[in-house]
C-alpha cells in the first residue's frame, strides 16, 4: 500500500517542515504506473466555484425557526401578564432578523475543485478557506434529515485525515451528492491502488475496470428487534424526553384542590396495585420506546462492500445516514456485549478506522445475535478467528488483582454506611449485613472482570478482551499498530504485572491489554510487531516479587 505524508490538519499545530530529501507534499507517490483518473462529473468540474443547492434557502429559515421556537415560546409565556402586542412585535422582529441571518451562510459558502484539491470558502467577515487534497479523501458520508429528504438534498461530509476535522457541504442535491461521493472515492482509490505485485492486505482487489459487483455483508433482519429492549442505548432518549417534559411541567398550573382529592383517592387504593401498575407501565413504555428507537435508527440497514474496496453503511428511517469508508482504512472491529444484551446472547459491532465517524468508530450492526456479529466481523476482518478465538488468560496474579481491586467498591460504599450507622445509631447488623453483601458482590464482579480479560494474537490481528459488566473484544490489525506503551503502576509492579497499550491511528487510538504478566506483555508486543523490540531486548528476566494477599493489589 502506498501512502504519503499527511498535510497538517487545519488549525492544528504545524508539524516540522519536511526535511530536505522528503518528497514534496502534494506530489503523487513516486513509484507506480500513472493512473487513469475518472473524468470529474459536472458537480466536481475543475476550476468553477460552486454554490450550495439553492433549496437550502428553504431549509435555513425552517431550521432557525425551529431553534428559536422554544425561547420564543418561553418569552411569550413569560410576558403573558404584560402587553402581548409588544411581545409579539418584538418577537416577530427578532425572528425575522434571525431568519435573515440564517441565510447568510448560503451566500458566503463556495466550493471549488482543482486538479488536486477541494477548496471550500466560507465566512462574510472572517474569510476562511479550507482545502483538502483529493487524493487523501478517506471517507465520504451523506446525511439527510427529514427536511433534506423532502427537498431532495443530502449533506456531504468529507473526511481526509487522521483527525476528526471533516469538511461539510450542507447541502447538495441528492443525485449530485451521490455522484460526488462516487467520484471522490474512486479517485482516491485509483491513486491509492497498489502497484501490481504488491499485495494490499491479502484481499483480492477488483481492478478499477472490472464490472461493478457489490457484496452485501449485512442487512437488517427484523427478528433482531427482540434485542431492542435489552439495549440501554435508548436510555439517552428517555432522559432527553424527560428533560424536555420537565421543562413544561413547571408551566402547568396545578389546582391544589384537585391534588388533594387525587391524593385521597391514591391512598384509598392499594399501594401495591399502584406500584405494580406503575412498573408495568414503565416496562411497556420501555419496550415500546426502545423498539421504536431501534426501528428509527436501523431502518433499512445495509452494509455493502463496494467494488474498489470501499465499505458502505446505510441506515436510518427519518434521518438517513450513508457512511463510506475505504476498507484499507479499517484497522479492526470492536464487539461490545453489555450485560443485558449478553443475557440474550446479543452483541453490537463497530469498525475502527482512521479519520472516520465518531471517535474513529462506525457502528455496523445494531444489537443483534452474537453469531451474526461474529460472521460479519469475520468478513470485515477477512479472518474468522479474532471474534471467536478463545482468549489467553492472564494468570493467577492478574486474577488476584482483579478480585482485590473490585473490593474498592466495598470500601467506598462502607465508609458512608458506617458513618450513617454511627450518626443514626443503627443496629450493628445493618453495617455488617451491608458489608457481607458488598464483599460477595464485589468478588463476583472482580471474577467477571477477570473472565472477560484476555488477549490473543492471530495471523493479522491483536485481540484484546476487557470489561466487567460490559464485555468488549477489540481486534486491531497488527499492521495498524504504531507504537507500544508498557505501563506498570506501583501495585502492578509488586505483582509483576503490566498493562500493554498498542497505539494506533484508528478508532479510539489505543487498544489496551490490561494486567498481564510483564514478560507476557513484552513477548506479545514482540510477536505482534516482529523486529521492533529485538533491538531493545536483553537482560535476564527478574523474578516478579510475589506478595500474596494483603493490600499489594489495590
Amino acid at each position, binding site marked *: 500500500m502506498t501512502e504519503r505524508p499527511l498535510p497538517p490538519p487545519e488549525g492544528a499545530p504545524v508539524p516540522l517542515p519536511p526535511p530536505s530529501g522528503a518528497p514534496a507534499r502534494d506530489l503523487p507517490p513516486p513509484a507506480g504506473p500513472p493512473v487513469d483518473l475518472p473524468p470529474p462529473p459536472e458537480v466536481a468540474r475543475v476550476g468553477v466555484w460552486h454554490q450550495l443547492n439553492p433549496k437550502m434557502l428553504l431549509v435555513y429559515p425552517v431550521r432557525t425557526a425551529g431553534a428559536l421556537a422554544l425561547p420564543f415560546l418561553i418569552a411569550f409565556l413569560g410576558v403573558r401578564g404584560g402587553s402581548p402586542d409588544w411581545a409579539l412585535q418584538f418577537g416577530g422582529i427578532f425572528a425575522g432578523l434571525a431568519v435573515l441571518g440564517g441565510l447568510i451562510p448560503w451566500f458566503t459558502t463556495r466550493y471549488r475543485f482543482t486538479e488536486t484539491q477541494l477548496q471550500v470558502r466560507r465566512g462574510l467577515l472572517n474569510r476562511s478557506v479550507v482545502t483538502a487534497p483529493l487524493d487523501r479523501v478517506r471517507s465520504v458520508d451523506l446525511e439527510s434529515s427529514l427536511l433534506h429528504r423532502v427537498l431532495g438534498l443530502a449533506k456531504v461530509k468529507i473526511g481526509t485525515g487522521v483527525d476528526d476535522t471533516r469538511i461539510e457541504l450542507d447541502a447538495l442535491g441528492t443525485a449530485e451528492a451521490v455522484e460526488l461521493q462516487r467520484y471522490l472515492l474512486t479517485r482516491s482509490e485509483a491513486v491509492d491502488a497498489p502497484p501490481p505485485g504488491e499485495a494490499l492486505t491479502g484481499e483480492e482487489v477488483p481492478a478499477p475496470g472490472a464490472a461493478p459487483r457489490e457484496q452485501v455483508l449485512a442487512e437488517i433482519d427484523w427478528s433482531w428487534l427482540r434485542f431492542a429492549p435489552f439495549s440501554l442505548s435508548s436510555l439517552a432518549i428517555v432522559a432527553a424526553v424527560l428533560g424536555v417534559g420537565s421543562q413544561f411541567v413547571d408551566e402547568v398550573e396545578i389546582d391544589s384542590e384537585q391534588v388533594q382529592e387525587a391524593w385521597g383517592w391514591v391512598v384509598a387504593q392499594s399501594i401495591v396495585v399502584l406500584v405494580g401498575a406503575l412498573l408495568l407501565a414503565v416496562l411497556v413504555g420501555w419496550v415500546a420506546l426502545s423498539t421504536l428507537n431501534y426501528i428509527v435508527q436501523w431502518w433499512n440497514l445495509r452494509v455493502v462492500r463496494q467494488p474498489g474496496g470501499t465499505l458502505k453503511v446505510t441506515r436510518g428511517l427519518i434521518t438517513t445516514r450513508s457512511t463510506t469508508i475505504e476498507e484499507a482504512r479499517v484497522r479492526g472491529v470492536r464487539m461490545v456485549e453489555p450485560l443485558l444484551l449478553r443475557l440474550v446472547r446479543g452483541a453490537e459491532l463497530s469498525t475502527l478506522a482512521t479519520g472516520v465517524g465518531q471517535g474513529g468508530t462506525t457502528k455496523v450492526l445494531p444489537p443483534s445475535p452474537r453469531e451474526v456479529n461474529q460472521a460479519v466481523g469475520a468478513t470485515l476482518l477477512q479472518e474468522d478467528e479474532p471474534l471467536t478465538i478463545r482468549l489467553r488468560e492472564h494468570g493467577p496474579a492478574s486474577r488476584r488483582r482483579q478480585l482485590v481491586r473490585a473490593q474498592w467498591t466495598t470500601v467506598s460504599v462502607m465508609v458512608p454506611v458506617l458513618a450513617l450507622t454511627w450518626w443514626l445509631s443503627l443496629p450493628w447488623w445493618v453495617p455488617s449485613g451491608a458489608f457481607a453483601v458488598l464483599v460477595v458482590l464485589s468478588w463476583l464482579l472482580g471474577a467477571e472482570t477477570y473472565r472477560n480479560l484476555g488477549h490473543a494474537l492471530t495471523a493479522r490481528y491483536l485481540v484484546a478482551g476487557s470489561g466487567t459488566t460490559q464485555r468488549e473484544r477489540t481486534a486491531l490489525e497488527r499492521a495498524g499498530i504504531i*507504537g507500544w506503551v508498557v505501563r506498570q503502576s506501583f501495585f502492578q509492579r509488586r505483582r509483576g504485572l503490566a498493562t500493554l497499550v498498542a497505539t494506533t491511528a484508528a478508532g479510539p487510538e489505543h487498544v489496551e491489554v490490561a494486567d498481564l504478566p510483564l*514478560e507476557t506483555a513484552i513477548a506479545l508486543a514482540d510477536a505482534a510487531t516482529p523486529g521492533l523490540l529485538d533491538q531493545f531486548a536483553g537482560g535476564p528476566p527478574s523474578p516478579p516479587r510475589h506478595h500474596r494477599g494483603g493490600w499489594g493489589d489495590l
Partner: protein
Amino acid sequence: MTTGDGVEPQQAAGTLGTEATATPVPEPARGGLTLRDPAHRVCRRAIAYWTVESLLWSGLLLVAATVVYFFVLPERWWWVTVLYALVVVEFVVDVLVKPRWRYAVHRWEVTPVAVYTRTGWLSREQRIAPLSRVQTVDTKRGALMRLFRLASITVTTASAAGPITIAALDEDEAQRVVAELTEITGRTEGDAT
C-alpha cells in the same frame, strides 16, 4: 547515541508496516524476553531543575500551609497537625527524593528505527515508537528550563495515546537529537497511520 546515517528508508519503514501475512501465527511464549533499559540518562542538570521546580510549587503549598497552621487557625486540632505533617513530608520528598528518583528512572534511546523511553517514579512507563510512524518532533524550552540550558523533546505519532517525551536534555544534545530524528523520519514515506 546511535546515529541515523546510512540507514535505508526501507529498513525504517519495514519495522511495523509490513503485512503480517507471511509470518506464522506466533505464540507469545518466548519466555524470559525482557526489555533492557534505554541506553541514555537525561542531562545531569535535570536534578537541579526538577528540584527548583519542586521547591517552587511544593514550597508555595508549604508556605501557605504554614501560614494557615501557625497564624490563621484559632486552635491546632490534632487532625490539622496530621495534615500539616503530611504537607511537610510531601515537601521533603518532592524536593529531595523525587528529582533524584526521576533521574534514576528516566532513560531514553533513539535508534535508526525507533524511539524508546522509560519514565515514572512509583509507576513505570516504557514507550516505544517506530520512527517510520513518527509525525512530528517538537522541542519545548520553558523559562526555568532555559536557565538550566535544558530542553525536552516530544515525538508524536498519529495516535493521541502515543506521544513520547524525553524530558530535560542538554540543549545542544536536544538539538542534535531533533536534527537526527527529523532526518530519519523525513526519509520515511507513508502517512504514518
